[in-house]
């Protein structure tokens, strides 16, 4: 079976949901105008998705900045900042909800992978925000990816927290500068 589309689309969801559901939504699904291949769409939880998960934000990026950029794809119905579970401070992700599915798709195409606050941000279609999902799921309250990051990222709290804790412990034990 060959793909009938000649260029990959940027408004396909990432493998996050597909992997979760252990199901494959072909990235190469034929275009709907060909009338075929719609069977997978029936139970696709993202087929009407109006929400996007936005990742790789700086901890310092504000709702207003996000609003300014994301409203270029349509009116924003709701914006939920991702927060550190314990400190209740932004921890580098958010959910943006539009009024229409098309706006969300356009956002994937036109805004995902561009810069906000001088960082390349990531967007992914999302089934919709639910209470509780605004919190980081990492051990120390932030996002998991910020636990073990061994590169210094000033926009996301420096080194990964687990790494940082280890570093500090070493410094205490062996004295700074080792």
């Amino acid at each position: 079976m060959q793909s009938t589309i000649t260029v990959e689309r940027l408004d396909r969801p990432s493998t996050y949901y597909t992997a979760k559901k252990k199901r494959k939504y072909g990235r190469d699904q034929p275009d709907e105008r060909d009338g075929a291949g719609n069977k997978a769409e029936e139970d696709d939880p993202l087929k009407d998705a109006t929400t996007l998960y936005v990742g790789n934000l700086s901890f310092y990026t504000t709702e207003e900045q996000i609003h300014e950029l994301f409203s270029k794809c349509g009116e924003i119905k709701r914006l939920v900042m991702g927060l550190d579970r314990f400190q209740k401070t932004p921890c580098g992700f958010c959910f943006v909800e539009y009024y229409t599915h098309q706006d969300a798709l356009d956002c994937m195409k036109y805004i995902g992978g561009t810069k906000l606050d001088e960082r390349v941000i990531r967007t992914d279609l999302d089934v919709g925000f639910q209470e509780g999902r605004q919190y980081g799921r990492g051990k120390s309250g932030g996002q998991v990816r910020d636990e073990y990051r061994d590169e210094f990222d000033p926009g996301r709290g420096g080194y990964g927290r687990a790494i940082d804790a280890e570093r500090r412990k070493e410094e205490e034990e062996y004295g700074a500068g080792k």
Partner: protein
Amino acid sequence: MADYDRRRSRGGGRGGDDGGGGGGGGGSHFNNRKRRYRDDDYEDRRPQRRRYEEPLAVTVRKQVLSIAESPVRRAEDDVATIAKSLAENYFDHDLTSGFVDLVVHLTVEQPLKIPFIAAIVLLGNSQKPELTVDVLGKIGEALQRRLDIGEWREVKLYLRFLGCLQGIFEGDGIFTILEELFSRAADLQMKSSEDSLGLELVKVILMTIPYIMSSSASGFETQASSLLEKTDIIASTAHPLETLVDPFPNPEVGGPTSSESALALLQKHMQEEAKNSWELSCLPRPWKGTRSAEEEDALTAAQKHSFPQVTVPQVVQTGPRAIYPDVYFSVYGEQEIETVPTASDTAALLIRDALSDTINVLDFNRMVAAKFLTDVDCYFAPDTFVKRATPFDKLREVTGDKPTWKPEDVIVDAAFSQLLQLPAPEHKLVYFHSVLTETCKLAPAAVAPSLGRAIRYLYRNVDRMDLELAQRFLDWFAHHLSNFGFTWKWTEWVDDVNLPDVHPKKAFIIDALDKEIRLSFSKRIKGTLPEPYQALISEAKDKDEPDFKYNDESTPFSAEGQQLAQMIRRKASNEEFTPVFEKIEQDAAASGLTDPALASTDAFVTSICWIGSKSLSHALACIERCKERLMAISSASSACRKQIITSVMDYWKDQTGVGVVILDKLLNYQILTPATVLEWALIDHVARGTLLAKTWCYELVSLTTRKVAGRVRSIVGAIRQPGLADDRKDELQQALAHEMETMKNLFSIIEDAVGSIRDGNQDEMMESSDALRAEEEDLLKAWGGKWARVFQRKYAVEDSWVREELSKPIPEPEVKTVTKDTKMEEVQVAGSLDGQNGTAVDADDQIE
């Protein structure tokens, strides 16, 4: 060894329950890795994996997909190779059907490749005419489908493909259908002088002719000329809507346009080409190649085919995209050296057409779109452009007849022509931003200087540019800089900092900085600016949360203001506010204020703003909590509604972007009415017209009209639902009539207000004229004129959209219409905000 054993056992389990595609993928992966451990004299017990040989169908597919993409390969050679593989393996069903499908898709998805794909079919025809039959069959079907629903760009592209194949057709070939299209166009034009569909059909015809005439076919000059004679009347007559879409309108109302209609230009070009024996020097001729005399004979002697059976419907449809006349627009018109083809050159429109289609068609992958753009020189005749990344200054050294066209300028020009398309481009504006960003990322050193010259041109002309376009330019500029570290050579505009704030250039600077700050923060932007600009960014902009005026004891009602704020913070019930309101109103009345309710409204709304100043979510949560009282205030009087706006915009005066978002939400809640917003901005607070120079005012007014128009559109969408009961339909028709009336009234509020500024009828203006310099007064009048044009156009577009939409046949059931539901009743939806946001907000509140 251990490694091997472990893997093997895993491999054994693979056939089990896991199954599916994932297992297969894993298997091949592990096999590849296994190679590293392979030992020559080790006896491999596993069944040897078959050596993987890519099926021919896959190889050819890749070759076809990448045709002409490489600047170092000769596309003609690849065309010949592919044609040969196809002809020799015609029996391979996967190969043949795969190719046929690919041709159908490539034609409309990658239009720049059409001549090359057609050349493959052309060469294949002399070796295996059966393949041509298959291709023509499928293309014919696809073309018919697009014709029936009125997708004219796709019709044009399929016709282009067929035009390139004119040499293999019997008789007149493609000219029959072109004649048929023309007769439809003529009918439409006969019926109405305002028809624009007829223009689109003529454009399709005129854009097909050059590809026919640059194809392998010969001897069609007569047919082409006779067609051109007929199209002349339609193409050369100015369309009444042309003035509406002029990017540089004549400031005189009703004056002639300054820009040329693209269609009229195209007609002229084709007539010129006819005189010059259809030189069409920019178009590629991939069918030419180097061939032996024998092969050449085979090509001419190859079997001819009849043109696919396609009929133009008796009643042609406008299709999904509204059609407006097209004006040729270039940002490189004022240069000493020609870096893009001039409007009088055929190449200008041929290249522009192919590039704008590429941009618009590929909106679903901006990276690929940008790649096509940067490779533009691969898809046209060699020597059409100078080498990539040739610096502007080096163009002087180009000698002789060679063109000095810079590929980077040509593509940036095409992208801007789409971004600055009136009345509206095909996609959201941000798409064009993103294409330009990607192009810059692909070839920064080459594209950045071209963008720089484009920016300078647009800035230089910002005062005579259509206001809507100036706003789009502004928005793009700030967004673009935000993707590239906010670097711009601000020093070159330093002199303009001293212009009055209402001068279009100064207004541009002020608003560009404001928009940059909105995407970033003020310290960051200040750091990118030379000294003279620093004063344009006030200290107050640094504050995340503006001061609460009632914290200052000298502010009237300071104590009550603070009290209200405390009550909002602790989520007091609606009734608890009443005594404070009464207190303020009594004191206000006692001190002689004519409308005491305004004082209490101000204290209340300002408090909401302050308590909610932490973030937009906080603001919305506050509004939600105070909704009941806000609604009561709103219904009290128009003056109170306006006071709400005043209080919000006064609190957020240094961060007007935030203020506008809040007003937007208040409109959704119906706490504000569209009319209130328009009167507030364009009459009460317009300050002799100075507010018209502010982007936030433009944004506020546009979003208000957009909401109203969105409501009309959603009702039209509802009416066009298939299978609607009659009484429901009547109901909707009445609702539509009502909304149309509302919309009309709102647009006339704008028209009257800005019209009076344009005509200098403002009383205030007369009185203060001695204080105002005459120059400034002229500038304000010009702003009034620009506003009037933009909103007249917006109204005309909405009005005609409704008429067109209602005149279309109701679609068959199954069709899903995606109309944005901007209904004002949607407040219930927006109203659920608080509950969802609650946790975060509460937690934060407690920290305070």
